[in-house]
């Protein structure tokens, strides 16, 4: 059974590259373009790892993180941010305080991504949550919105 990673990211370019890189690495990738859809998927399915952007429309990454951690406290969450009005470190610091397992400042390269994802999966106790989770859809509902 493949390790499933839920990627929540509103930027189509970043979402696409994350999906490409992670898929080539052998992971099963589920994508959502904002926090609202990401939470919906997570509530009804599950994932071994969640990667979420912070600044997104509708429901941002901070709220997404809070809701995911309420649902399943043990799932590792990797937050990613390129900053905006303030530096990305600020957002990542808030996310860390709210339970994010790790943060990556955009831009990051493939090597940074692989190393971080593998570290998180290796240290997380994901087997129990994944075993209990129902099967994930192969394509998320909002894929049509992606270019």
């Amino acid at each position, binding site marked *: 059974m493949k390790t499933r990673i839920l990627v929540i990211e509103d*930027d189509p*370019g*970043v979402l*696409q*590259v*994350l999906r*490409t*890189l992670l898929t*080539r690495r052998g992971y099963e990738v589920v994508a959502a373009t904002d926090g609202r859809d990401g939470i919906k998927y997570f509530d009804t399915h599950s994932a071994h790892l969640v990667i979420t952007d912070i*600044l997104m429309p509708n429901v941002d990454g901070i709220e997404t993180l809070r809701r995911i951690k309420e649902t399943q406290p043990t799932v590792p969450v*990797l*937050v990613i941010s*390129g*900053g*905006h*009005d*303030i*530096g*990305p*470190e*600020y957002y*990542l*610091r808030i*996310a*860390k305080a709210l339970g994010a397992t*790790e*943060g*990556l*400042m*955009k*831009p*990051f*390269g*493939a*090597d940074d*991504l692989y190393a*971080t994802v593998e570290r998180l999966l290796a240290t997380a106790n994901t087997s129990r949550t994944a075993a209990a989770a129902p099967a994930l859809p192969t394509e998320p509902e909002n894929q049509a919105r992606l270019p």
Partner: protein
Amino acid sequence: MKTNSEIAGSQQEPVKDDSVWSSPTLCGDVRVECLADLAGIVTAELTPMGLVLGVTRSLTSVLGYAPQELIGGNAFVHLHPEDLARAQHELLQTSSRGRYRYQHKDGSWRLIEVTHRCLAAGGGLSRIALVIRDVTGARTVEEDRDRLQLELGRISKLAALGTLAGGVVHDFNNLLTAIMGYTGQARAETEKPDVSHALDQVLKASDRARQLTRQILAFSRQETHAPEAVELKSVVEEAVALLRPVMPANIDLHTDLAANAGVVMADGCQVHQIVLNLCSNGIHAMRPRGGRLSIALQRRVHPLPTPNHKPNGWPVGDTVCLSVSDTGAGMDETTRQKIFEPFFTTKSRGEGTGLGLAVVQRIVRDHGATIRVISEPGKGTAFEIHFPIVNSPEASLTSARPSLGR
């Protein structure tokens, strides 16, 4: 061209008997004398040809002459020859304000500002009333305007930078993430050396772009400052560890880091930034010959202010001094005065953003620290940053705060 003296001697004075402006002149009025003296100005009355009809006694304190030395003579005699024609022309206008060089009795040249009004009498120009002010050393309106324009330009740059940081950097980072991700993937999968080399260049360029966005974000005040009580030695050692692998072979890196220099309140990431920026500049300044790059950390004790010793912005009490010095090209005074300006750089296009030292200065200020630059052309440059030592015993020591996820 006639000399000033010739003009003075050749004039024919059209003094007319006029009910209003006949002698004695206003300058003899005790109230005018008093007011001119109080205001530090000179009032005078001239004929259109420059003959001095009257002048207040304040002339002596302003230009050195006693009134009787000028009354009856020509005021233009003491004007700077290059200003003479302009002064004559302007004084024949109905009213004006002009600045001219005028010779003081002691021989020095003074810059005087002359405001005048022509007084008509009997149907023609009769006399010119003047107010004269010594403005030697004062900034001119033009100088003020130029200075303000420079300042406005600097503020505009900062505003533009803030807009850039807030609106563009976020999107730019997303684009870079896609570029770096795909390039890294392609680099890992290709077996062709030339393609591999080309992709390496894309990654290098992307990394430079990443550093640029970091600098812009850091400079635009929008990066948060999270100080903790730290011994700077470990922080500086981490920065040096980052530097060593990229140090050019012809640079001799020397460190002298005191273990217990003192506890300061500092943001480890930002101190890293200071060290990296200063070292990067030092390395660049020693190109192409190379040289010695020294990083030192030591406790310094500065005397407390006394009536005879005022530090004038320099720290007092105990500080931890972080110094970075090189044996490179050094700077002249003109360059030294500009180095902290955003976008000022001595590097070639594409080699520097002109933000490195501006970021350093911003961080230094956020830490309540002080920076000093010592530089001499041909000999090198040294930067000293003094962090105030925290004396509070309850300040718990921590190591440098690592950036999340890095």
